[in-house]
């Protein structure tokens, strides 16, 4: 059935069953492939996107639950890599394979939007649902702190969800 959906500030209509997870609507219908499939059961966090600014697992979010809430994917943080989280991830050179990092960055961006100066404890609870099979956790933690510093230097960009 047709759904109206707002992703990264753009409205589209997609023809999808109500139970179809947002992950596959993004990847296979809207051609937004930053969001990754890793487990399909909310264990790995590779599919993390923002729904109305809150981090959710797109693999477990059916289309029927999205409604009019705006969706933000990694592509929507910024296309040019200028969001503080993207800048920090580049600066620290976090990834090895990079497959989990879209989800990591979306969890980090949601954290910073709510908690601009996160402590290590804040980072623990925000990021613990995102697995990194390559084990880049030390750099992920560094990058979240770095992103907080960059965001405070440029407060206008301190938002995980940018609605154009």
């Amino acid at each position, binding site marked *: 059935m047709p759904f109206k959906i707002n992703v990264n500030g753009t409205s589209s209509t997609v023809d999808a069953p109500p139970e179809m997870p947002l992950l596959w609507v993004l990847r296979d219908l809207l*051609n937004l492939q930053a969001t990754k499939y*890793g487990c*399909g059961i909310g264990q790995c966090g590779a599919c993390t996107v923002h729904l109305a600014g809150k981090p959710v697992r797109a693999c477990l979010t059916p289309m029927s639950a999205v409604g009019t809430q705006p969706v933000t994917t990694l592509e929507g943080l910024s296309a040019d890599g200028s969001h503080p989280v993207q800048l920090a991830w580049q600066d620290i050179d976090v*990834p090895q*394979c*990079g497959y989990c990092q*879209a989800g990591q960055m979306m969890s980090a961006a949601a954290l910073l939007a709510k908690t601009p100066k996160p402590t290590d404890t804040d980072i623990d609870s925000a990021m613990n649902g995102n697995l990194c099979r390559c*084990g880049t956790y*030390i750099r992920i933690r560094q990058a979240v702190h770095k992103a907080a510093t960059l965001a405070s230097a440029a407060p206008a960009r301190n938002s995980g969800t940018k609605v154009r």
Partner: protein
Amino acid sequence: MKRTEKTSMERRSFLKVTALAGGGLLFGLAEAPKAHAQGRGGPPAAPPDPKNFIKIAADGTVTIVAKNPEVGQGVKTMLPMLIAEELDVDWKSVKIEQADYDESRYTGQSAGGSTATPNNWTPMRQVGAAGRAMFVAAAAKQWSVPEADLTTASGKVMHASSNRSATYAQLASTVAGMQPPALASLKLKDPKDYKIVGKTQPNPEIHNIVTGKPIFAIDVKVPGMLHAVFEKCGVFGGKVVSANLDDIKKLPGVRQAFVIERPDITDAVIPGDPGLENGIAILADTWWHANNARKQLKVTWNEGPRAAGSSIKYAANAEELAKKGPQRTIRADGDAEGALKSAAKVVEASYSYPFIAHAPLEPQGATASFKDGKLEIWTNSQIPGNGRRMAAQALGITDKDITQHMVRGGGGFGRRLNNDYVVEAAYIAKQAGVPVKLLWSREDDMAHDYYRPGGRQDLKAGVDASGKIVAWKNHFISYGEGERFVASGAMGPTEFPQRFVPNYHLGASVQPLAIRTGALRAPSSNAFAFVIQSFIDEMAHAAGKDPVQFRLDLLSAGGDAANAPGVDAERMKGVVKLAAEKSGWGKKTLPKGTAMGIGFHFSHRGYFAEVAEVKVDAAKKIKINKVWVAADVGSQIINPGAADNICQGGIVDGISEMMQEITIEGGKVQQANYHQHTMMRLTQAPPEIEVHYLTSNNPPTGLGEPALPPILPAVANAIFSATGQRVRQLPLSKSGYSWA
């Protein structure tokens, strides 16, 4: 210890230069055919085609081809760094281009065994140096000056006394007509002059990764393609008897559904990799539609004989085999039994470790298009050449009919050394008649891996009155048939501490296995280091010696190592001392319940010793406070930032393995997803991992694998020191432990 650098370029090599239509140039490594095949008189090896690595565009852009599969190990940065260094161009002017698969053009293209560095260290530098030499020669000719008076920097040739300079792009037309130099004649840079190598260079894909560009195999799209899933029997080798395909075809979004009967492959082209299995392909408009349709599948399977596979039975069989003693002897030095009788102290212990899965975060998958007898395929295979051979055989075409694109893989860890999913995609695309993107579910991946084989080792060793190990016996109980071990399930005759103990006996027994096995990052070492380095720790405590000093003494007992295979004792002692020094071993007072443990291991030409500081609370919750890594991988760390990242990842990976277990009942794997086969999370991983390199006068070797094995015994030995409880069985959960 000095060792001369050996080049892997045994064949006479030369540079092939080709003028490009756009005014640029291509330099490529090409090898002349060997005059005679080595060994037992087969036909001479066919001459490979010239392979191209460097393009200098008219506008000065330097494009360097990265030839190996990238699965997160950083090879797409590292190999081009070697070329750029000797070519003498600025790294910021370099564009990196991923090669397609074609070993006749590029030489070896695989990701496995931590071989990229040792195999390419010299040839890739020679490719760059040959390019530089030709620009120097071109300038010398243009200016009529001796080559010796010319220097290069930043993609330019300079003549200081006349204050002349020319960019490589300006010299390109002169170079095009020149004869390339013989690679062996080239003088390579003194490492002290390096501008690129030895300096941290970022991942060339970093911007694509942080902006979510479609760079992974799962992201490949081909016009008109359908999304495919492939349902296989939970028992390896099981076959479809019947299925409700007519019902499936009616489901929303489903376009095709069909049974694939494995073609009769009597002679597997890749030993140990059966490739295509029997199963049901469902093709739909989206992957979700295809995968969702599987829920409605009603299949009658003929599970076949492997349905008898059972972890409970394997453990019981291993117990029986242990009682009977080794089926055969792998190695016997001296008289272990006799030496045990006269030893001052004898320690006996049985160790075991489970099957575990690779579970790279990107599930297996490939995209294939088959038209007019030709296959085009996009894969993240770690050995694309094997995938091509297997696909060619399964489709009844030749290697030349296949174009294979090498796409970034979301992790590898050895899983993508096997090409079953590549053959599946190819076969499904051919049968479907449309391009197909095959993607496995996580559950498919967990159920159809090539698992790290489990095993059991029953050890008995003795020390003399001075605390020296005088006898070592190991009954290695694995899987296989007769004298054949399953893949990655063998122990060789030089396994440590062979050569360091005068009376050494290694015996082996095997039992048949119903599942597939294969290489997991640091294969065999990832299990053996846990056993051997834990047991050495037991010996140290039995002898009343400090575990570090005991190890140094053991490593000193091997005599002259210069011509012995395996461990170079001096290099290993170097890293053991470095790990002890950096961790403050024996010098710190740690709180009750917190302790350090050490382990070392040699694998993939790398020497690693690691210390873990571990806290164990009353509820047996384990926190790894900090890890110190000491590594000797030769004279040069090529990309230091990436090297640290890989070493730290190896530590996290190794610790994760201590809680993982795959079990089998009814021939089927019982774990389905990450909740049942866990990996460390951010809060569980060590918050600090220090990596220290001991540079030695040896050619550089790889880091992807050898950093992993020592961390398992380092943690297990720390648990012993913290609690007095010796861990002899993995996963740790069997002894009641969990991560804090």
